[in-house]
C-alpha cells in the first residue's frame, strides 16, 4: 500500500510535477526583514539576545518543540559558564539505561546530554497537537527559505483572516505561513516572560530573540566559519596577487 502510494505520488508529484500542489496556495508572503548581528562578513551572535531566546524557548516553545541536535554543553558558546550549563541541564529529566536490573530510568541531565524532545515519538506529538506535528527546531532556520526572518515573522504573523477566508477547525491564520493556516496557536503574547536583563517583553522582542537563538542552534559554527573565512580570503588574495605578478613577469619574456 505504502509502496503504491509512494510510487504513484512520485509519478504524479515528481514528473508531471507540482501540478499536485493546490492551486492558489503558492502566494507566499515575503518575511519581514530585520538586520541581524550575525549577518555580514564579521557577523557574530548577539549573546544576550540568544540567551533571552533560549529562555523563551524553555518557557514557551519546548512544550511542543524539540531541539534534539543541541547539547547543553553547546550553550557555553552563548556565554553561559560551565556551572550555569550544568544547572540548566540538571533541570531536565533524561531517560537513560538500561541499568543493571535491565530497567530504563530517569536521571537529571548532564552537560553532555542533548535537549530531550517533548514527545516520545511523532505519533504521540501528533496526538497531543490535533494531528499536526510540531517540528524539531534545531535546524528550522536553515530548513526554511530566509529562515531567521521567517521565524521572526511567523511568530508575529497571527492576525484576523481576511474576510471570506475560512480555515479548518483548530487552525490559525498567519500571514507568513505557507497557505496561511497553521496548527500552532499564537505562542507569544506581550509580557509573557520576564527577562532578567530588563529587556522589553513585547512579542517583537521575543520573536527576534527566539530567531537569534534558533539561528545559532542551526548554525552554531557560524562565527568560527566567518572568522576563518576572513583569514583564508586575506591569504588567498595576497597569494593570487603574487601569482599574478609572477605571471606578468614570466610572460614578459614571451611577448
Amino acid at each position: 500500500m505504502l509502496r503504491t502510494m509512494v510510487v504513484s505520488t512520485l509519478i504524479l508529484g515528481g514528473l508531471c510535477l507540482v501540478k499536485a500542489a493546490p492551486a492558489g496556495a503558492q502566494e507566499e508572503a515575503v518575511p519581514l526583514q530585520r538586520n541581524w548581528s550575525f549577518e555580514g562578513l564579521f557577523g557574530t551572535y548577539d549573546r544576550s539576545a540568544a540567551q533571552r531566546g533560549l529562555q523563551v524557548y524553555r518557557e514557551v516553545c519546548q512544550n511542543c518543540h524539540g531541539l534534539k541536535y543541541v547539547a547543553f554543553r553547546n550553550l557555553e558558546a552563548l556565554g553561559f559558564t560551565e556551572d550555569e550549563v550544568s544547572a540548566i541541564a540538571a533541570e531536565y529529566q533524561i531517560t537513560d539505561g538500561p541499568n543493571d536490573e535491565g530497567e530504563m530510568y530517569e536521571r537529571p541531565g548532564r552537560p553532555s546530554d542533548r535537549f530531550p524532545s517533548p514527545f516520545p515519538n511523532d505519533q504521540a506529538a501528533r496526538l497531543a497537537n490535533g494531528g499536526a506535528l510540531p517540528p524539531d527546531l534545531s535546524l528550522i532556520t536553515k530548513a526554511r527559505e530566509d529562515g531567521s526572518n521567517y521565524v521572526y515573522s511567523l511568530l508575529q504573523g497571527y492576525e484576523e483572516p481576511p474576510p471570506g477566508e475560512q480555515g479548518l477547525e483548530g487552525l490559525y491564520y498567519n500571514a507568513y505561513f505557507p497557505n496561511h493556516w497553521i496548527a500552532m496557536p499564537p505562542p507569544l503574547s506581550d509580557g509573557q516572560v520576564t527577562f532578567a536583563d530588563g529587556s522589553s517583553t513585547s512579542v517583537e522582542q521575543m520573536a527576534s530573540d527566539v530567531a537569534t537563538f534558533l539561528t545559532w542552534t542551526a548554525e552554531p559554527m557560524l562565527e568560527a566559519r566567518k572568522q576563518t573565512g576572513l583569514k583564508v580570503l586575506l591569504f588567498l588574495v595576497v597569494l593570487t596577487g603574487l601569482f599574478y605578478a609572477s605571471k606578468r613577469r614570466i610572460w614578459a619574456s614571451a611577448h
Partner: protein
Amino acid sequence: MTTSPHAPGSGPQYDNAVIRWIEYRLPVFSFADSFMGSGYPAPRNLSYWWNFGSLAGIALVLQIVTGVVLAMHYVAHADMAFDSVERIMRDVNFGWLLRYAHSNGASMFFIVVYIHVFRGLYYGSYKAPRELLWMLGVVILLLMMATAFMGYVLPWGQMSFWAATVITNLFSAIPLVGEGVVTWLWGGFAVGNPTLNRFYALHYLLPFVIVGVVGLHLAALHQHGSNNPLGIERKSAKDSLPFHPYYTIKDLFGLGVFMIVFALLVFYWPNLLGHPDNYIPANPMQTPPHIVPEWYFLPFYAILRAITFNIWFIPAKLIGVILMFGSIIVLFFLPWLDGSPVRSGRFRPIFKWFFWVLVLDCVMLGYLGAHPPEGVYVTLAQIGTAYYFFHFLILLPLLGKLERPRPLPSSISEPVLGRAPAASTSPAE
C-alpha cells in the same frame, strides 16, 4: 650518466644524484617534464578560457580529498544518515568546513566543467584530430552527473529522498522492463535503506573511475596538444611555449581566482546553492511542494519535463527521458555533426552568433527547470528543448555547408607577436 636503453640520451639531464638514481629506475621526472613541464610545448596563444581544464582536475582532487574524510564520519543508513551529517557539522573538528567545501565544491566543479565544455564548443576543440579527447570528456561529464546525483542523496534530507525517487523513476519509462529495472535499482519497492547504501558505495567508487577517464582524456590531449583560440595547428617552434613556466604560472593564477570564489561560497554563503528542504529529514510520506534538483541539473530537468504530450504510442514521459539523456548523447556525435573545416568560432561569422544563442538557451532552460512546468514555462521549455536539438542536429551540419568562414591567419605566432599588419584578426587575450 647512464641512460635507459629505451630512451638513449633523450630527455633532460639532471644534476642531482638522487634524482638521477630514481630517474634511471623509474622515469617520473622526465615524465612530469614531458607531461606538464618544460618538455611539453603548448600553443603560445592560449587564453584564460584554457584555464578551466586544469581547474576541473583540481576540483576533482578537492572533492576526493574532502569526500574521503567525510566518509570517515558519515553513516550510510536511512535512520542515521541525516543525524551523522549534523554530527559532522557540529561535533567533528572542522566538519562544517569539510562538508561545506564538499557540497560547494561540487557546484564549483560543475561551473568549471560547463565553462570548459562551452569553450570547447566555441573554439571547435572537438574537431579532428581531437574527437576522442572530446568524447572522453563527455564520458567524464556523464560520470560526474551520476556521482553528483548520488552524492546529493546521501544527506537523506527531503530533497535527497525525493530527487532519488524522481530520478530513479525515470527508468520506469523503459517499455516492458521499466518497473522491474526500478525495483532492481532501489533494492526494494521504494527508495529506502538499500538504495542509500548502494548510492553511497557508487558515490565512493565513481570518482576514481573519473580519475581513470581523466587519465585517458589527458593522454588524448597530449597526443596532439591543446587546441587554441585561433583553432589552427602549430607550424613552427615559434608557435609554442613550454608549458612550464608559462602555463603553470597562468594556471596557478587561475587557481587563485577559483579559490577566492570557492572560499566566498564556503565561508560566507555556504547554503546559497542548496535547498532549505534538505535540512528536513527524509520523509517518504510527505512530498515537498516543489521537487527541484541541484542547479547544475536544472537545464536537463527542464528538458525532461518539457514534453507534455504523447507522440503516437510513445508516452510523454518516455520522450522526456529520451530527450534528457539525448541532450548529452548528442555531444558524442558532435565531431561529425559539425561539418565546418574551421575550428575556431572567431572565424565563423554565423556560427559565432548561434553559439551565444545556445548559451542563452541553456541558461533559459536552467531558469525554467527551477519553475513548475505550468503555462508559459512549459511552452518556453519546449521551445528551448527544440532549439537545443535543432542547434546540434540541423544547424551545425547546415552551417558547415553554407557558412563562409573568414580567412585564417597563416600561423599562431603571426597575430600573437603582432608583427603581421595584414590578416591579423584579433589579438589573443
